[in-house]
């Protein structure tokens, strides 16, 4: 068989595959265009906070330089492949044997050195500006503690403990109020990553790490744990609510209040305080002061349960208490084997914790 006969079929197949590929890409573009809400896409290229923005600006420089290098080297390789391919049958003659050229080698050594120098200086500036930024007087301090598989947020200055949903005030240039986070871990490694606000920083046991954000706009910013932390790493989701200063102060006031005591849910409260619930969960103002699970004092002020795995609705809450595995397999919360009556009473009690 001649080489041309041997190779014809694969090329034809390649054309067919390329057509398929184009089709799939069209589908992709179509479906991406139909995405429900672009603000819910945690893209690193839509920064809304100084650290994320500095990184975004650095990434534009890095992407343009690497893009230019790619275009040049790609063209060189492509030129070689097209220009110097053997045409026709082998005539047995060898091309000119070239062993090298010191001048050329020097050129393609010095130019990359200069590129690396530029990239390094630009990068070093961003490292220092983000990592060593001074903490202004008006900064909010939060201690974030990673647990298998949920987030604990403590506001020491306010005496507030929250879980999974971080509330911070918006920070405008005129009235800068960034949030500085101290990152701790209760068990394994985790990583705090909200792409639109900042790059990730790990939460490591026996170690205090730091990061900061200063969101410029109000809204909900999504993220999730970015360091494998065990079976349910995938459902350790993270929500950051950026609010106006007034909304934030209101939220703090509400979180500081003790648990509301409502009449008519005593049965549910008794279930909570006589089963294992209270070993892991705290409800301020009651005997429940466990710390292995999220603080439930203001459970109903959260939009989600199970670290963002489900919306905080009556059905989900009941299903979660009945069998956590139905929402989040292998989460550390056990099923309590409650009767339907106990389950309804407990759900009703929890739903009063506003």
């Amino acid at each position, binding site marked *: 068989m001649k*080489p041309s006969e*041997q190779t014809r*079929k*694969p090329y034809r*197949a390649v054309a067919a595959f390329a057509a398929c590929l184009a089709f799939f*890409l069209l589908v992709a573009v179509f*479906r*991406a265009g139909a995405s429900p809400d*672009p603000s819910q*896409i*945690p*893209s*690193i290229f839509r920064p809304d906070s100084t650290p994320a923005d500095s990184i975004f600006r*650095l*990434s534009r420089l890095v*992407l343009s330089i*690497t893009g230019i290098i790619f275009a040049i080297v790609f063209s*060189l*390789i492509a030129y070689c492949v097209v220009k*110097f*391919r053997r045409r026709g049958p082998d005539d047995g003659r060898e*091309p000119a*044997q*070239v*062993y*090298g*050229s010191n001048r*050329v080698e020097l050129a*393609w*050594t010095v130019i*990359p*050195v200069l590129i*690396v120098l530029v*990239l*390094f200086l630009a*990068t*070093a500036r*961003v*490292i220092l500006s983000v*990592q060593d930024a001074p903490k202004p007087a008006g900064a909010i301090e939060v201690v974030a503690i990673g647990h298998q598989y949920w987030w604990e947020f403590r506001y020491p200055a306010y005496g507030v403990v929250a879980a999974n949903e971080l509330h911070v005030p918006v920070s405008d240039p005129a009235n800068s109020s960034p949030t500085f986070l101290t990152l701790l871990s209760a*068990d*394994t*490694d985790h*990583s705090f*990553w909200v*792409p639109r606000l900042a790059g990730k920083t790990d939460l*490591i*046991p*026996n*170690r205090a*790490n730091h990061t900061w954000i200063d969101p410029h706009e109000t809204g909900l910013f*999504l993220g*999730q*744990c*970015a360091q*494998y932390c*065990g079976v349910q790493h*995938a459902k350790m989701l993270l929500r950051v609510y950026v609010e106006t200063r007034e909304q934030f102060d209101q939220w703090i006031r509400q979180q500081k209040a003790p648990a509301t005591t409502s009449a008519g849910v005593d049965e549910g409260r008794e279930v909570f305080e006589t089963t294992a619930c209270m070993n892991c969960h705290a409800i301020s103002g009651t005997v429940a002061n466990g710390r292995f699970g999220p603080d439930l004092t203001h459970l109903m002020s959260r939009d989600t349960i199970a670290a963002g795995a489900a919306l905080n609705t009556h059905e989900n809450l009941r299903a979660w208490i009945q069998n956590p595995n139905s929402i989040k*397999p*292998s989460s550390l919360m056990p099923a309590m084997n409650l009767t339907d009556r106990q389950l309804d009473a407990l759900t009703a009690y929890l739903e009063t914790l506003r």
Partner: protein
Amino acid sequence: MSSETIALGAVAESGRSIGETLHEWVTTVDHKKLGILYLIYALFFLVVGGVEATIMRIQLIVPHNHFVPPEVFNRMFTMHGTTMIFFVAMPLVFGFGTYLIPLMVGARDMAFPRLNALSFWLTAFGGLLLYFSFIGGNGLYGAGNAPDVGWFAYAPLTSRAFSQGHSTDFWSLALLVSGIGSIGTAVNFITTIISMRCPGMTLSKMPLLAWLNFVMAFMVIFAVSPLTAAQAMLCIDRYLGGHFFDTQAGGSAVLWMHFFWIFGHPEVYVLVIPAFAFASEIIPVFSRKPIFGYPVMVAATIAIGFISLSVWAHHMFTVGMSSYGNTFFTITTMIIAIPTGIKIFNWIGTMWGGKIQFKAPMLFCVAFLFQFLIAGLTGIMLSASPFNWQLSASYFVVAHFHYVIVGAILFTIFGAFYYWFPKMSGRMYNEMLAQWHFWLFLIGFHLTFDLMHIPGMLGMPRRIYTYEPGRGWDTWNLLVTIGVFFQAAGVLIFVANLLWSMFRGPAAGDDPWDAWTLEWSTTSPPPDYNFAVIPAVESRRPLWDLKHPEDPDWKYE
């Protein structure tokens, strides 16, 4: 030089029982048989690791999929990573090195043939130990399980509090055992290259493949030793009450990261330098020109070897190092791009002005050039540590290192299989099937790993068994999974081609590619002890000198 080769000990293969043949292969100390054993063993695990990857990709094809439970997914990514690095990529490069180095330096075997056999069997035993965890991971306590701590097994997930049963022990011991095998192989490579070269082959006349494996072997000694030490420390933690990495007793999780990555980053170069070696042999032969800038290629390799030992903490930009630490590892990582770039330019220089012949080995090497270029550029993006804070531990990183390990390393290894298959088996592979393999695999590779960068930049972390809809990740994951099936089809064609050609392929002849290094001067397959008369060389391309007595290389070198 002497080109005479007399088939030594060409024992009639017929008339022996299967038992005798098996006994011969199990007890062999012949570097060629051991090399082939490495390759067969690695190909088997390539298929196993590929199945594990496919299971993960099916699980991720749509959000909230229920194909496998989270535990199984976590075992799959742990086993996939561990298998592909330690029991596919390492045995593949060691297999080719073991087979080719003595032939290329004109030696009759490795310096320590029995150590060579021991190294292979330790590596093989390590793989079996790892896979025994599927049935033995929980010991007598219940159903088996495989390790689920991730391939870099960060502390404290590996401590007994978080990893009960024996799955982590199997993982740790498998790496300890195969690591000892790797160090044995490295010692053997170094000694063979230093002391077994044929007359006339000075270091500056040694084929690049031998040079690059020489550098690689030193890196194995420096990189694998800390990993082996760390495994011993982990076992001490788990069974003798040590607290190296046990954070609940004041141990350090970051210490493990340092130990792992001071192995882990040089390891990338341990794998990619042999890939460079294959490209540096194949590209010249199929361009019909000598390698451009041989001394620069050697110097760049040595530079990569040294620099790669000082970059490990770029895997740890997010663990909260000081700004000075981050700055240091940014500059060292960026510097490594310079010798790497020099290599790419030299391969282009080799093709420039040549008469390039696109047989399967060359196709894979040209694809390697394109893909390694992209892998290097995404590497530069990751080296800028602030950018890394966004990209690390996301699917962007997964795409980046698969670009290196599949796009660069596996592609050249496929090229190497096609290039040296005629020498190893004495038979020619089927070129049409090889081209089908190439194109299917190329399309699958790009569909999977080009698009995999995108969800990473949209905030999708790695190692999640499922993801939320509505974050812009769905479509990309669907397409990425579709690419896997193209790659699987390519690999099946590849295996079928090798098996079919092994028994039915036409005779290849001693020198089917009109090549220039010593392995092509002996018969295909080479006889026991390779050369009846030890050859003597005068240049880097002894067979060129022989074929072109009017214009020999030694006049110019």
